[in-house]
């Protein structure tokens, strides 16, 4: 006879049966205790860190690839895959020797030929690479572990460029991957980095899985930023794609994830009260929020109109709206290179010290011959910065008697529209706002936004021959001190031709469970080597 009890027993047996495969599977899985589940700032969509400049792909690159040089925590380049290197007396020939025992995850040794091909492909895409390659005469391979970069003229940024932390980073790939057309995406994920990309367990859009690379030979030095010994102390790292911020936060509090790179800023104070969590700013150079002006069309094709914007922008408004007026997470900054970076200086910043001056802005708009046409401000309503920045820009402009067309859209539409060079009334634009890390912003070569070569430069397409000459002079300066001096000239001129306005510098906290330790702070990339995870607290 069938009774309730027998049905219940049958149900339990069925449940046990369906559970059985998981028991078998878990035997092959890395220990959960040594797995860090991380929610990063974006979902990983493209796997080739040279083809795209997306930061999240640079993170992926840092997991599975290695670099010839790496920046330490003080932003000084240190050898990474390279064991020895030297520069000839005429300062034209760099010779690099690779460390012993470097292997790709397919088992092949890393050779000098792999590195030469990788450097060439990277140089075709990266701003710093292009600047360096313009002075490179040859890249001969000497033997399996040695290659050279031969210059046509001395160039002081070779090592800095190879160790750049601004996207795209100079990752070493297999020669056959690196010989892919730079405009085509590399689909393989074979690197010689500290982690292996586990394609079988990865579910695009949901979870990316990285396992410890058992064949990786770390350097002997202690880890420091992107340099030193990349000792992996975890079995596995997963990048979990949790699109909803509130859900990610709840998952962190409940211990379902271990690391949350950028929790929503307005909830940081609440998170600080949670004794199970550690909060820390990992990127000490922060981010720069900036507003780009379109130099191709009126009114900002006129320097007086651009100068008017310098007097209109009020960083406190935008930063206060995002972080709170009293928050210590942001600071106003008047330097063309961001604040707290080696290039920060005080040249030509009287306008900044004076603060917002609407009357002066009105006067300058009139002087520019502003004819009343609407200024098109792109406002990405789903972007934490571009939304309030758009609203404030409209308010500031209106207060100066300028007509505004506030074009609301999502971020996906904004990144598409900002590439349109047509007049604003025909689908173009006048103003958009975005962010970049402080370390990238401070580099006149690596940051494409610092170029002023007209229609070839970044969106806004500013043209200023003097700025281009100064950038070139900066790139070829032999020492850091010399570059700092040239940076003053760059800033002085930069705030005259005004490619963009700074809206503030801010520092976002990362949050992780207390049982996760050894987190290294670095701009642009979150290193997962050196990280440890103890049993849950």
């Amino acid at each position, binding site marked *: 006879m069938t009774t309730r009890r027998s049905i219940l027993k049958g149900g339990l047996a*069925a*449940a046990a049966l*369906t*559970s059985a*495969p*998981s028991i078998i*599977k878990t035997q092959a899985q890395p220990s959960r205790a040594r797995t860090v589940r991380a929610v990063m700032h974006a*979902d990983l*969509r*493209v796997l080739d860190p040279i*083809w*795209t*400049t*997306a*930061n999240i*792909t640079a993170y992926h690159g840092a997991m599975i690839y290695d670099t010839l040089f790496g920046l330490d925590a003080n932003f000084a380049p240190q050898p990474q895959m390279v064991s020895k290197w030297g520069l000839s007396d005429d300062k034209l020939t760099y010779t690099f020797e690779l460390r012993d025992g470097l292997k790709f995850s397919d088992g092949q040794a890393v050779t000098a030929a792999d590195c030469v091909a990788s450097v060439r492909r990277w140089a075709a*895409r990266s*701003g710093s690479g292009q600047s360096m390659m313009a002075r490179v005469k040859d890249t001969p391979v000497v033997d399996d572990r040695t290659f050279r970069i031969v210059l046509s003229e001395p160039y002081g940024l070779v090592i800095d460029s190879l160790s750049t932390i*601004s*996207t*795209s980073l100079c990752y070493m790939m297999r020669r056959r991957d690196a010989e892919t057309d730079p*405009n*085509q*995406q590399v*689909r393989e994920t074979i690197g010689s980095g500290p982690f292996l990309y586990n394609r079988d367990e990865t*579910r*695009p*859009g*949901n979870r990316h899985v990285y396992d410890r690379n058992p064949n990786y030979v770390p350097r002997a030095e202690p880890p420091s930023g992107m340099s030193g010994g990349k000792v992996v102390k975890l079995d596995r790292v997963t990048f*979990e794609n*949790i*699109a*909803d911020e*509130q*859900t*990610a936060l*709840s*998952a962190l*509090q*409940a211990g*379902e994830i271990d690391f949350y790179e950028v929790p929503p800023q307005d909830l940081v104070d609440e998170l600080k009260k949670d004794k199970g969590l550690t909060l820390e700013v990992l990127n000490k150079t922060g981010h720069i929020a900036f507003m780009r002006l379109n130099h191709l069309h009126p009114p900002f094709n006129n320097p007086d109109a651009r100068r008017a914007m310098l007097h209109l922008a009020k960083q406190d408004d935008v930063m206060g709206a995002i972080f709170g007026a009293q928050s210590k997470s942001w600071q106003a900054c008047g330097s063309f290179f961001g604040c707290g970076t080696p290039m920060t200086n005080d040249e030509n910043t009287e306008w900044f010290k004076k603060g917002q001056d609407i009357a002066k802005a009105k006067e300058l708009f009139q002087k520019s011959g502003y004819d009343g046409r609407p200024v098109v401000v792109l406002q990405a309503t789903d972007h934490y910065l571009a939304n309030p920045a758009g609203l404030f820009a409209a308010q500031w402009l209106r207060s100066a008697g300028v007509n505004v067309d506030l074009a609301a*859209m*999502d*971020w*996906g*539409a904004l*990144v*598409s*529209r*900002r*590439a349109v*060079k047509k007049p604003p009334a025909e689908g173009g634009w006048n103003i958009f706002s*975005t962010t*970049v890390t402080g370390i*990238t912003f401070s580099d006149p070569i690596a940051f*494409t*936004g610092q170029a002023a070569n007209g229609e*070839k430069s*970044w*969106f806004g397409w500013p043209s200023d021959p003097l700025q281009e000459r100064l950038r070139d002079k900066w790139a070829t300066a032999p020492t850091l001190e010399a570059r700092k001096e040239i940076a003053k000239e760059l800033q002085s001129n930069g705030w005259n031709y005004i490619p963009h306005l700074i809206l503030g510098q801010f520092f976002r906290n990362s949050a992780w469970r207390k049982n996760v330790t050894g987190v290294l702070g670095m701009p642009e990339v979150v290193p997962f080597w050196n990280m440890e995870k103890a049993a849950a607290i």
Partner: protein
Amino acid sequence: MLAYIARRLASTVLVMGIVAVFVFLLLHLSPGDPAAIIAGDNATGEQIAGIRKQLGLDDALPVQFYRWLAAVLHGDLGISIFSNEPVAKLISQRIEPTLSLALMTLLIAVTLAVSFGVVAAWKVGSWVDRSLMVVSVLGFSVPVFVVGYMLIYVFSISLRWLPVQGYSPIDQGFGPWIERLILPSIALGLAYVALIARITRTSMLEVLAEDYIRTANAKGVATRSVLLKHALKNAGVPIITVIGIGVALLIGGVVITETVFNIPGVGRLVVDAISKRDYPIIQGVILIFSGVYVLVNLLVDLSYTLLDPRIRY
């Protein structure tokens, strides 16, 4: 009957064809460029143009449409622009969580809602009726994501009874599978419960006023039998209809619920695809959703013949 089914299936193909054209045009004429998103924030216009060319996005719209339609007619939904994986594979990877969520929601919603509706009609005018209808109104008025966050706060953060988010496939154990579906199903099902409960109540009230029900009561037939055997079956046609119509509600709700509870289903797939303008995925998913919706309505129409023998096709 067979001729009717054939006619309906033919019209399904027509409907899906129209959906395909509209979705394609709507996506490609709306602002946004996947090449700009792929290239990253630091890329120049030149680099974006290179990627656009490589992806074939600078071809004329009719050329792109022809290429996509020809592939679809051969059963190929295309390749994701971002992950470079076949869309069919991505959908198949995501179908289990969505089906699990939808079926669990249906099960909970129909069971609760029909019970609520029947009881409310039986006890019409009483505090039970009023209470159930208040719950129904609330269920219909509170957005899914608000319910979701409240459930997470209470049951996951405060009480720690259930996980906050995620999905565990059924082949990794029934326990983890069901525990991750409970909260999302309740959040998603609440509006559905409200909708079905109200229709059930109204339909039951009509039937309960019929002469044959009075006769059954006069003959001394047990209340349970009167309600479930005599009344509910005859009140079934509108209830089944609203369950069918509610599938559209369910599909829309799945998209939000999967985002709030981080369930890697088809809803999440399409939301992510929309934010990054991954056209082949959006087109593929909408095509499949529209097909499912049309087929569910066909099944609903066919089920009428089982409930009411007077209906013939």
